[in-house]
Every structure is written in C-alpha cells, then in structure tokens.
C-alpha cells in the first residue's frame, strides 16, 4: 500500500511540474566525449567496446584506391541497403576504373571534403561531430564512414530493412474507402499521409522518446490550421516523457493523457490513413510513433468513438442512421443487462404482462437470483470472447460457435440460466461489437459489471446512481483542453448537430469550433446551386476567408 502510494505521488508530481525536457544527447553523454579520438584504430577499438560483439555490427576497414587514407565503414547488417553501399560508397572510393580527378587528389587533409561532396553518390548524407552521435544514427540504419585522423564522421542515409507492405487495416475495416492502412515503418506512413495532403503546410515534426529504444515520434499537423496552443501542449507533454522504452503508441497515450486513472480512452487511435488525414485537416494533431501502425489523434472527444470513417463517404442519410444506431447500441452495451436485472428484480410492473409471465415461467426452478445469473453469463461471455481472440482464426470461430451456441443452449436446458438472460447477454455482446472503437467498447464492457451490481442492489435507482457517477467523471474529463463530452456539451449548436448528423460535404463549411483551429472555414460555399466557371475557382479556400460566398 505504501509503495503504491509513493508511486501515485510520483505520478502526480510528474503531472504537476513537468521537468524541462531532457534531450537524448545529454542522457547519452554520460560517457566523456574525450574518449573519442580521430585515430582510426583507437576509434574502432572504442566502437567494439561500446557495441560489443553483436553479430549484426559490421565494420569494414579499407583504404582509398591509392592508399592515401585509411577508412572504415560502420553499419548494422539488416538495417542497411547493402547494394547502395557497395555501388555508391565503396565502388567510387575503391575502384580504379572509375578513378576520377578527385580520387587522384585525395589526401588525409582533404579527404573529408572530397568524400563528402564529390566522390560518394548518396542522396541523403549528414555529418556527425563525434562518435556518440554517429552511433545513434548507425543504430537507426545509417552507415558511418570514419576517416583516419579526421574527427568528423560522414553518415550516409542507407536505411532499408524488411518492411511489411501497406495492407488493409485489420481493426478498422470499412466497406467503402481506401484500403491502405498504416504500417510499422514511419517513412512509409509519412509518405501515405503526404500523398493525401499535398500542401506545403503539412508538417512532420520529429521528436524522440525512450532512452533505450530511442523511438521516433512524429507530430503531424497542418501548420496554418492547427491550434498552436494544443500543439505546444502536445509537444511539451511528449518531451516530458522520460522512460527507457516506447514500444507502442499505447505507451505514449498513457504518458500524455489528462486523467491517467480514467477508465475511458482519452485519445483516439487509428490505423486508417484516411481517418488520420481527416483528423489533421480538422485541425487535430496526429502523433505518429515508429514501429506501430496505430497513430494517436489529439485531442479527442467521446463522440468520435461512435463515428466511423465510412460515415463520411456514404450518403448522409446512411451516416445519420448508422450514428443513431451506434448511439443506441452504446447505451445498450452499457446498461441493458443492468436494466434487465433491475427491472426483473425491482420494477416488475414495467414489463408487459405476457412478457413477465413468460420470464417468470422461464425462471421457475433456476437456482440463482437474477444478478448471479447475469454476472455468470456476462462472465462466461467475456471468457469466450477472450478465448476467441487468442486462438488462431480458424479455431477461434469454432470456439465461439461451440461456446455461444452449445454452452448457452446446454445452460438453459440444465436450468442454470433462463433463456431471457441469454438473449440479453447476447444482445449486449453484439452491441459491443457494433461500436467502431475497440478501446471505447472495452471501457463500456468493464463498466457493465458495477452497473449490474448496482442495479441488483437498488433497482433502476442504482443504475441511475452509477450512470451519474460515470457522467460526473466524463464531465470532468478533458482531452488537451477540450472537454471530453464536446460537442454535445459545451459546443455550438452546429457542432452538436454534427455529432449525429453528418452534413453533406458541400454544406460542411466549418471545422469543429472547440478545436479552435486557426482557420475555421473549411471551404467556400459549394452549394450545388452555385455555378462558378472552373477556372475562377482557386484550389485552396483558406486564403479567401473574407470572400463573400457567391462572389467568386
């Protein structure tokens, strides 16, 4: 207990006064830099000491074609494009046939300049001033070229490794919409986004976190739309992360969210590129983490979890219907079992008589009270679902079928549970699946259990009691300064309507107000009635904010 308490205290301390961001350079600079030396042999010894005998570390020592200078390449096997190193770095330096005037002129003193500017043919090239810096880059897949007697190190961008190809996002399938999902490789991900937003103001801002993993984090936003305060807040919170490892964006999510103890997800994550692009265009910030396809969207409000990207591609009516359905389903998933338990053990008058008679008949002879029955069935179902996920796909289906149908049926026949309860549990389960965001539906699944217990203790009053507690919590939550329940609460009327109604695109003129973007207007008034000759239209509408609609 005491431990837990100090831990909590520390957490709070971290939240309250974020320490000045410690750059990774400083952290790694504990080893005195004067260990480093321009003498190649000593340097190589030093490298061997620091990197150890790992078998993927490759050190290639060689001389220039006329033996003027001793050189060494340092690279990590598997992270580099070997063909490129051979053809564009080693070949020009070593080859006699290709020897040009620069090779001739090469001496120890001008080696750095010549190699840097003239001899090698690599597009991405940088310098490191000391070994530590160079090692960092090498560990990310670059290749370092050491020159005997030269303090500076040339680093070639030669990153290439086995990547998963761009594939359809698994967790967010859609009927209509692009099939591309993010991958684990950041470069591919940035390219996917850049291909969608070809605007000069799209920014990828690099940060790093994790002492040992040195994970790359990109903040993606559009410079003249994003709210600068939100952006600064995100930047500050990510910079304040001081941990040894970041393996997934889930780590970052927990570090930067506002209420670390909340059961509700306060950041939305997505692996759909179109969804990420849409968020950026609304004025949100995308936090892109290396080595995971899941991108975080900041800030997030609760009602984003009932929206799916498909809503924006289908007819508005379809979207309206689906959103209403999801809202309904959200409530079902949260309160249906609790309400059922409350009604059949407290408020029997609410049920139609014939239904009550049927329920009573079905419950005759069942040994448990309704609560126990509900908890038992809900628990069983959670186990089945978990088992279904863990097992291989083919077996998983079998398990769900055997579990759902066979066990359910047998339980009814054995008189353990009543059929009504099975229906309720099944309806609840299906409802949970219909919520687009997995993390939100998990939160609801968890909250269901206390609600069932409250319902069993105090009837519907208990359920309301529980719901009000949840409501107080939700009303107190904020995601980066944006109240969590926006826009239903605290929002403008327009945004409130947009929560449920997806307006036709030509009428969707403004960005959400609560994000407070720098430019609220998204587009000119594009009603179908307006016929402007094509050439008069400008490609971007941001600059023409003051333009009267209809004028041009």
């Amino acid at each position: 207990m005491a431990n837990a308490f100090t831990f909590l205290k520390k957490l709070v301390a971290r939240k309250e006064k974020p320490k000045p961001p410690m750059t990774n350079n400083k952290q790694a600079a504990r080893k005195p830099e004067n260990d480093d030396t321009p003498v190649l042999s000593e340097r190589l010894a030093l490298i061997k000491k620091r990197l150890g005998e790992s078998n993927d570390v490759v050190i290639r020592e060689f001389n220039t074609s006329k033996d003027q200078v001793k050189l060494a390449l340092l690279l990590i096997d598997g992270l580099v494009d070997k063909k490129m190193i051979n053809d564009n770095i080693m070949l020009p330096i070593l080859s006699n046939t290709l020897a040009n005037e620069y090779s001739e002129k090469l001496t120890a003193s001008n080696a750095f300049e010549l190699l840097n500017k003239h001899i090698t043919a690599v597009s991405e090239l940088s310098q490191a001033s000391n070994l530590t810096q160079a090692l960092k880059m090498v560990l990310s897949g670059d290749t370092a070229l050491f020159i005997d007697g030269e303090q500076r190190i040339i680093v070639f961008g030669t990153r290439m490794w086995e990547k998963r190809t761009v594939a359809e996002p698994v967790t967010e399938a859609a009927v209509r919409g692009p099939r591309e999902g993010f991958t684990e490789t950041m470069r591919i991900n940035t390219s996917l986004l850049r291909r969608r937003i070809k605007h000069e103001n799209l920014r990828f801002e690099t940060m790093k976190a994790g002492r040992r993993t040195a994970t790359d984090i990109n903040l993606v936003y559009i410079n003249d739309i994003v709210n600068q305060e939100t952006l600064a807040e995100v930047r500050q919170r990510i910079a304040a992360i001081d941990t040894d490892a970041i393996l997934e964006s889930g780590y970052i999510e927990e570090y930067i969210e506002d209420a670390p103890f909340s059961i509700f997800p306060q950041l939305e994550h997505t692996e759909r590129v179109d969804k990420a692009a849409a968020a950026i265009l609304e004025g949100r910030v995308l936090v892109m983490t290396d080595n995971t396809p899941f991108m975080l969207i900041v800030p997030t409000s609760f009602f984003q979890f009932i929206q799916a990207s498909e809503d924006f591609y289908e007819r508005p009516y379809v979207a309206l219907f689906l959103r209403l359905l999801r809202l309904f389903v959200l409530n079902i998933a949260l309160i249906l079992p609790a309400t059922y338990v409350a009604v059949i053990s407290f408020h029997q008058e609410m049920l139609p008589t014939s239904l009550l008679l049927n329920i009573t008949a079905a419950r005759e002879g069942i040994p448990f009270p309704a609560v126990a029955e509900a908890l038992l069935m809900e628990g069983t179902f959670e186990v089945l679902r978990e088992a279904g996920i863990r097992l291989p796909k083919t077996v998983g289906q079998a398990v769900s079928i055997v579990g759902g149908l066979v066990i359910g049926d047998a339980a009814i026949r054995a008189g353990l549970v009543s059929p009504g309860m099975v229906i309720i549990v099944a309806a609840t389960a299906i409802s949970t699946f219909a919520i687009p965001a997995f993390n939100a539906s998990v939160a609801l699944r968890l909250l269901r259990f206390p609600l069932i217990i409250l319902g069993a203790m105090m009837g519907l009053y208990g359920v309301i009691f529980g719901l009000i507690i949840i409501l107080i919590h939700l009303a107190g939550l904020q995601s980066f300064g944006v109240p969590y329940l926006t826009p239903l609460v605290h929002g403008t009327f327009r945004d409130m309507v947009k929560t449920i109604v997806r307006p036709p695109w030509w009428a969707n003129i403004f960005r959400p107000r609560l994000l407070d973007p720098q430019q609220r207007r998204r587009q000119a008034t594009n009603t179908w009635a307006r016929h402007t000759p094509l050439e008069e239209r400008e490609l971007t509408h941001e600059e023409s904010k003051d333009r009267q609609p209809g004028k041009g």
Partner: protein
Amino acid sequence: MKKQLTILCLLLFCLSLFTAGCWDQIEVEELALVRAIAIDYQPGRRSPYLVTFAISLPSDVAGGEGGGGGGGEPTQLFSGVGASMDLALHQASLNLSRQLFLSHASVILIGEEMAKHGLAHVFDFIIRNPQVRLNAYLLYTNGFAQQMLTTTERLEIGITEEIIGMIEQARFISETEPLPAYKFLQKVVTPGQAAYTALLQKGSPLEEIIPGLQGEQKPGGQEESSGGSDSSEGGGGEKAKEVLTLAGLAAFRNQKLAGLMNAQETRGFLWFLGKTSRTYLAISDPQKPKEIITLHVSRAETKIKPQIKNGQLSFSVEVVTEGDIRSQTSTTKINTPEMMKKVNSANAAVIKQEMEKALHRMQQLQTDLVGFGSILNRHEPKLFSRLQDNWPEEFSKLKVEIVVTSDVRRAGMQANPALPRGE
C-alpha cells in the same frame, strides 16, 4: 491524490450502504401475479370486504402451448376477508406461497353490494397503493363479483384475458363504455358529473329471450367450478352454458350505485357522448312499416350547449351522424334520393327516440352521466355554483332539446333489390 482517496472512501461507504439492504428487491418467481381483482362487500359483517384475486400461473400459461395435459386452470383464485381492503389483502396472502403483486391487475370487478355500499374506500386503496394500475378497467357485476371469475366458457386461456378481450371488443359494439379506474374517479370528483361503469353479467342472453331453447335452466356454476373440462367436452346444449356478457352500464351517484341501464339505454346514452360508432340501427322501412332496414353507423358527433331563455335553463344537443345501409328485409327500392331522405329522417327519429329514452332513464336515476352540470360549469360558472348543491335533482327536471341529423352516405354494394324484372 488526497481528493481521490477521499472519494474512494466515500464511494465504498455508499456501496456498503447499498449492500446492507436490497430492501425492495424480489425475484419474479416469488411474485403472485394478480391479473384481476374482484371486490365484494358483505354488509353486516365485521370484516365486510371480500377481495378475490385471480392469479396467473406462469408455468401453466407457458406450458399450455405444448400440450394441455391435465387441463388445469391457468388462473387460480384466492380470497381474503377484512375490515378494509388492505386487511383483506393481508389475509389472502396467508394462503399464498408468494407475494401478492397487484401491478399487473388490469381488471377490477365491483360486486353489487360493494357498489351499493359506495366505492370511496376502494378508490382510496387504488390511489394510495403504488402498485395498482390506474388504467385498470373497472367493471360492475350483478351479484358477487367473485362469481364472474369462475366462468369456464371462454375463448382465451385465462379468465382475465377473456374479460380484457371483451373490453377491447366493446369499442366495436357501442353498447357499453368500459372505463379505466382513473376516468371513473375523474367523473366522480367532477361537480355536475356522475360516474358509470360497464356492466358485466353472467348467463346466456339468448336464454332470457327464448326460454325454451335449452332444456334445463340451472343457475349452475355458482361454486368454484373445477369441472370446467366436462362442460367443454359436452359441447352440445345439454347443460346450461354460462357466458359473460359485457353490455349496459351501472350508473353511480356519489360513488354509490344508483341503478342499471340496459344495453339499449346505454347506446342512447352514448349518442350524447358522440361515441356511438360501428353500431347497427334498425329503422322501419318507409314504405312497408313492418319491414326494417339495417343501418351501420360509421361516425357520430355531438355538441352540447346550455341555453338560458327567460331565466329557464335548458340544453341543446345536436347530433350529426353518418352511416350506410347494410341490409333490408323488404324489397323496397331505396336507391333513390327521395327514399334516402326518408331513410335519413326515419333514422334521425330512431336515434332521437333512443336518446330520449336514455335521458329519461338517467333523469329517473338522478345521475348526470353525460355531465350536463360540468358543461354548464364551463359556460356559466355562476349559475352552476348556485345549482351545484342539488344538481342531481335539478338534472332530473332538466329540459334537453335533441336535434339529430342523419346522413346516410352509402348503400352498400347492392344497387337494386334482386328481383325478377318487371315485378
């Protein structure tokens, strides 16, 4: 952090508060589901209230679909006596293994003696008790209300379903007007308005009309008839069949029974409310007075207005009705405008006569079922407040002018009587 801990402690405290109780929690299978309540009064006794509960047995109802096995009653009757409703209820629950649950009682039957004694206590019970439904139907029965629940000739599985079905059916017949309890009470408390309930009777109506139709006339079935299966097996007209009839009204004056109105008078009364629709009227053929034409009423509208002429209060009642011809017993050709006019005026006369009869009966009983008084109150509150105290007497002397307009719109599919040409 301190804040969160405090809240946590408080939450635990609150939860423990809840767990201590579950005071009102009860499982469905521990409930005795009352579907109908019959209330009787036995004057002269120390515990005069005899309350009978018709309790549905869930397993039998549900299992009844599979196979009728023993053919047991799906409804069980339990009775209790007491000096008040609550005491009677308490006594009845002594015989029960489950808790009486009144929320699903949709029919409340009032016995004759009960109605004569007055319903004040019954209503006190209904309103005060949070369980009883206010939209349960209130029905008056001749004799013991309890007896109605033992009727075995029925279409539905349970007796309550049978009665509810009849109540729903009553809308299409217009010979009675079943009221939910709250409407009855509303009429009781409104000044210048008397309340009424529908009349539920046992016995075959045909039996009364044609005495010789059935061999033996026995008022059997007075006792709890567990032998329901025999009579249904017998099938034919051997035994006296007992069926429920829902027709006519019981008129109340100040919560006490004033008298009964038969089906025809009731229809006459319903014209005042404009609620007569889907009913059949028989008018005599304008050419052959012994033959009749049957009309079907599809719509009726009534306007009631108080009139004061020379200090004399009277009411004017205007009825506009629409209908169509359904059949005729003669072969008169009625598809001519002149004939239609005649049919219309004959129809209006019939309706007017019916209404006058009903009014006469109401005045005789001194019950203002229509609510002439409350209408007067709305238009002339000062005049009414003078008359209010002895309104029933004033009502019995009231002059009412009735004007009926009949519009027969259609004459059915037949254009001419099916006769050989030239006859």
